[in-house]
């Protein structure tokens, strides 16, 4: 019996020893040669992957155009000392000036990184932050919740102002409910309010902030639509605003062109938009619409001439690749080569895929990304691509 007990104990100890909880080692960068090197003023791009909420799986990929190598999951290896990695739900990444900013929504912070190596410079705590925009040495960050709330049970959103030299928050101003993207025309910052958490009473306003005083100068109410998300401007000083719709068919997802002076909708484009990217006056859009009738998502890709306010192409992918894209989540256009990138978030809970198409809409390469590829920032010779960012894009 003693022998038996000894044997069992030994077996237990053995199993305990061999099955020891593994030391958790940081996950290294995975490199894949996806294409031939191309030398232009754009060196490559960073892709921020959201990661599912609560999973802390936000990650950054980097495509190095100069080598044709796709680097997956670079943040952890470049910043091993950051506790719990990049964070939870990466919403927006952009480069402004000599720094890169990654807006990490559910980690309530903006991660400030070096644009050449994605090493941490600083962390700026901003609650529930969504999108960032740079202008005149300041970074403006939209947030779902402001600092002091009049009604904490229905908190209004805010725009935070960050001094990009000291990397500190220098002010904030309360806007509408659940503000999303912003754009700047002249001295005015326009913020798209969604009210996405006030179903069915979505917000249908655009807040206008005077940047000289950093106060709300005006509120534009758009009667025929609500639940705004994407925002940009064109060379004629017009606002381009997307609505997510209300999913019930009372308000359709749409793209609106607005004259900021008269505050009138000049045109309803009649095209659903879930993400868009302005390259000069050429706007690339993607959308996904769920139908309970068919039990399927309908996917749309389009190209719009913003100057003429005309949809010029509703089928920008020409080689049939669009059929394998199940849930396009993000679109971006290389400012130099005009190659465009479409990210597929698939089922949200698996690794995404990025597709690279040339300007003719033919697939060049594709690669597996992190979970929910959401936002792209091109990196290159600043003077040549700055135009793009200063144009008020993400």
């Amino acid at each position, binding site marked *: 019996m003693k022998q038996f007990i000894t044997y069992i104990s030994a077996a237990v100890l053995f199993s*305990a020893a061999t099955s020891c909880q593994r030391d958790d080692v940081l996950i290294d960068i995975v490199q894949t040669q996806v294409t031939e090197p191309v030398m232009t003023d754009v060196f490559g791009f960073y892709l921020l992957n959201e990661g599912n909420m609560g999973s802390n799986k936000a990650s950054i990929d980097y495509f190095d155009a100069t080598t044709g190598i796709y680097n997956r999951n670079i943040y952890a290896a470049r910043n091993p000392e950051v506790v*719990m990695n990049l964070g939870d739900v990466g919403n927006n990444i952009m480069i402004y000036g000599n720094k890169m900013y990654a807006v990490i929504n559910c980690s309530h912070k903006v991660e400030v990184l070096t644009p050449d190596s994605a090493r941490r410079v600083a962390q700026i705590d901003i609650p529930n932050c969504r999108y960032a925009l740079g202008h005149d040495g300041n970074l403006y960050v939209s947030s779902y919740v402001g600092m002091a709330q009049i009604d904490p049970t229905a908190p209004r959103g805010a725009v935070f102002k960050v001094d990009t030299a000291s990397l500190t928050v220098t002010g904030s101003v309360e806007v509408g409910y659940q503000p999303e993207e912003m754009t700047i025309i002249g001295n005015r910052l326009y913020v798209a309010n969604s009210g996405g958490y006030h179903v069915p009473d979505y917000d249908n306003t655009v807040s206008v902030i005077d940047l000289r005083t950093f106060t709300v100068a005006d509120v534009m109410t758009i009667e025929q639509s609500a639940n705004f998300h994407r925002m940009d401007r064109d060379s004629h000083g017009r606002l381009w605003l997307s609505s997510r719709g209300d*999913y019930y068919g009372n308000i359709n997802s749409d793209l609106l062109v607005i004259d900021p002076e008269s505050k009138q909708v000049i045109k309803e484009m009649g095209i659903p938009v879930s993400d868009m990217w302005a390259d000069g006056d050429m706007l690339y859009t993607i959308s996904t619409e*769920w139908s*309970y009738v068919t039990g399927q998502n309908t996917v749309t890709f389009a190209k719009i001439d913003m100057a003429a306010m005309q949809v010029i192409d509703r089928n920008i992918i020409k080689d049939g690749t669009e059929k394998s894209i199940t849930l396009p989540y993000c679109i971006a256009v290389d400012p130099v080569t005009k190659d465009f990138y479409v990210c597929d978030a698939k089922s949200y809970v698996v690794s995404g895929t990025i597709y690279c198409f040339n300007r003719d809409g033919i697939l060049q390469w594709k690669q597996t990304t992190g979970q929910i590829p959401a936002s792209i920032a091109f990196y290159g010779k600043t003077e040549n691509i700055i135009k793009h960012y200063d144009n008020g894009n993400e």
Partner: protein
Amino acid sequence: MKHPKCGALVVALMLVTNVFAQTAADGGNGSGEEFLDSIMSIGEVEVVANKRPEIIRPQTLAGADLQRLNSHSVADALRHFSGVQLKDYGGIGGIKTVNIRSMGTNHVGVFYNGIQLGNAQNGQVDLGRYSLDNIEAISLYNGQRSRIFQSAKDFSSSSAIYIYTRRPHFTDGKDYQLSVQMRTGSFGLANPSVVWNQRLTDKISMSANAEYTYANGRYKFRYTRKQLNGDIAYDTTATRQNGDVEALRTELGLYGYLPRGKWNLNGYFYTSQRGIPGAIVNNVFRRGERQWDKSAFGQGAFEKQFSDLYSLKVSGKFAWDYSRYLRDDPKELYLNNHYYQKEAYLSVANLFNITDWWSASAAADLQWNTMDADLADFAYPTRWTQLAAIATAINYKRISLQASLLCTFIQESTRSRKLYTASPNKHELSPAVFLNYRPTGDDIFEIYGFFKKIFRMPTFNDLYYTEIGNANLEPEYTYQYDIGFSFSRPLGHKFFDFVSLKADAYYNTVKNKIIAYPTGKQFRWTMINLGRVRIAGLEVAGDVAAHVGKVGMKLRTQYTFQRARDYTDPGDTFYGDQIPYIPRHSLSVSYNASWLGWDFSYSFIYTGERYNEQENNRYNYEPPWYTHDMSLSKDFKIGAVQLRIAGELNNVLNQAYEVIHNYPMPGRNFRLTAKLTI
């Protein structure tokens, strides 16, 4: 599943600890408690062959064995069973649910004193809320409880956990029994409880029970990562916040005996408030979410054998549940939602003993569920369920066979402001067959198997949750095939008293699995019937009881192997991958030694590597975890007063681990218990 541990319990108790055996015998005679019936029947081998109600015995933890475990709740105790995966969000207040044989939490029926605990909202029962304080036995049945004299509901889930509270039994001619217990320990725990049993008449007794739990829920946890070169990347220790819990549970039971029958009436009330600690992510170590729960139910059962031919069992229940969820965190959007559920249930079961080897039964159940919530555009669903079950049992010489057929009819209605149509009416036929063959003609060696097809209804959340629900969902089906054997016998050896071994091999499929499907919408998901999972598993469990002089010893081990793979769509990147949170290997070992009122226990629980999402890649990898727990207790008898003092040390090696991704579990923690019984 046949469970030799019952046998182990009885034999070991009788041989090793006279006192406990006596208690069990008292319980068996006096209370007629269902699990004790089956335990006692094992000792009487001749009777068993024809009269045993369950042809595949469950896994059971009961009496002293149950009390010895370092377990606070029913959920903790279930870790010692084969085929069980516990989902534990950590701490005393954290949600704990179980998944049996990888078919999903919603397929587990939990029965409290014989009647199912319902949750039409999400179909899951938080087993962390059921403390072991007044629990006499927990049994786990794969397939269903394989007896035929039971309500139709007992046939209606893929696997079932039966929780039995103590029925009063009186010793030494006393008419009352009073026990007072106090527990304290880590996490700021204060946990007093009192049980008062009183004999009211010859045939009627009463049991009253109250338990209060408070814990601040704070514990240290640690995250470490290494760089690729082996250097420390970071090593951080923090305190779990917002995991406090305060709960009060009261129960009152009346138990009566009739000639060839019995009845009981039970009332249950539970109220709690707790913090929801939430996931630990970068830059977020504290969250501001809280939950309040109130739960009340009354239930009763009446059972009588009217003749040798005919027996009747009637049971019923009314339950009311309230839950409030508050998110009041300055960084998040404010949420304050209230949910109300009501359930009414009535069952009539009839048994016909046609011959001494053949019996048949018919049962009919009626259930009503409704739910209210102050959500925008809520559907306010109501569900009517009618269940009818017919079953037959044959116990002929070495063969026992049971076959049952369950018919379920479901109708739903909604009263919504717009756009919610009720889920269409449903009717389902669910067969099951259980077989047991005893080649040697006794209970020492048995070969058994079962087949069962059953479904689970989509929950109210699946069907109607604002923006996410899909009223057109079909039920989710499981098909189970199981074959196994058991060997158990008393040994009468110089050292060895008892040995048992059992093994099961099984194959399950889950069809029409209800999964969240992505849409382009802001809230992203809708529910659809898409998933398909195939599960192949192997379970082995062994028990040994032995003694050296006056030291009695027991060793229990169980090992589970599971391959649960997603076969939804060959185009998926995770096609053929192990489904989330199912380890291939899991194992537990528990050892117990007792000597003159002293009792020492040690247990080791191991869960192998898993993945926290569908893709089995390194980004989703969850390392194995295991814990070592120990306890020591001493029973004293001072005059008429029995005193028990116990100390427990859990996670002895203070290992950092997670059961659920980003929900750190407590490190080393302790608990002290003092219990006085008069």
